[in-house]
């Protein structure tokens, strides 16, 4: 995962502004900003910024993109108004999680993704991680249970062009309780 994503996600998850993180760590605010925007930083600086956000580095036994990384792709797709690309990225995360087992799967869902800019994607990501981790007998990570990850009005998964109504009885509970209507078959690889 890119340094910028790691630090941005950790800081947001801890509810800190760049200014507050700078004050805690002694890393200049301009440096925090530029690192979050992709500038390479020394590992010691990354560790300091993560520690200031109550996080630490671990190595996950997987090279597939995690929920936090995929959320970044979705955020970029949302920003450039490409809903089909956002949907494809979501399905990619589904396939990544399904391909991993045990700690590899848990690792991909561990880090809280930063908001994507669209509430239904934030809820769908939480539903997907809770669903796929539940399959392996893992509890849902805390971030997936936040109120901000639940929709008040249900949303049907679609790519932005066509929308097929989904039968609620075919929707896994982890999605249904977050207001995301997605057929379990949609998560199958064919």
């Amino acid at each position, binding site marked *: 995962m890119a340094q910028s994503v790691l630090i941005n996600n950790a800081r947001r998850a801890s509810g800190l502004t760049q200014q507050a993180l700078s004050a805690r760590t002694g890393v200049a605010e301009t440096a925090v900003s530029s690192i979050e925007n992709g500038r390479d930083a020394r590992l010691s600086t990354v560790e300091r910024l993560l520690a200031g956000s109550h996080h630490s580095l671990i190595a996950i036994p997987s090279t597939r993109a995690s929920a936090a990384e995929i959320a970044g792709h979705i955020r970029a*797709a949302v920003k450039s108004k490409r809903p089909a690309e956002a949907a494809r990225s979501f399905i990619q995360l589904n396939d990544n999680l399904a391909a991993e087992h045990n700690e590899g799967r848990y690792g991909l869902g561990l880090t809280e993704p930063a908001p994507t800019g669209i509430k239904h994607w934030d809820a769908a990501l939480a539903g997907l991680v809770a669903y796929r981790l539940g399959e392996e007998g893992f509890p849902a990570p805390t971030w997936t249970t936040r109120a901000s990850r639940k929709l008040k009005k249900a949303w049907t998964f679609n790519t932005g062009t066509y929308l097929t109504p989904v039968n609620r009885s075919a929707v896994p509970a982890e999605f249904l309780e977050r207001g995301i209507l997605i057929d379990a078959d949609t998560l199958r690889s064919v």
Partner: protein
Amino acid sequence: MPTRRLEREDLIAGLRELVERLKLSGDSASIRIDWLNDNATIFIPTLGKVPEWQPIYDDSHVSVWVLSAEALLAMKLMANRPGRDEDDIAALMTICGLATIDDADTLIDEYFPGDALSDRGLRMLTGILRQGLPERSPEPAEFRIG
């Protein structure tokens, strides 16, 4: 952070890389290819019309074949995963010159005799046709993968 869309060029680049790896390994069984999913095999027609496989690459070590658009459409119609297969079904309907639910049913019957569009598939196709099929994309240019 990568933000590129998955395009035809990505697929071709992926195939090139795969062919290269297969050539280097000399043993296809040693390569883990998890994007070729066993779950898909239940949708590959076995009883009806024999699906046409078209070679797009072939040398003495590696060959790459793709299913015809008709067979792909029949499989997609059978899978009909909401939110996932609509765009492909719409594009393939245009490519195959099909425009109605009857056309789709006839195609399914050719490849999967005795099967028909499920209720969900019917709901999906009705929605697609109501909204309209896309225009046909230009024929792709020739490409080399090995």
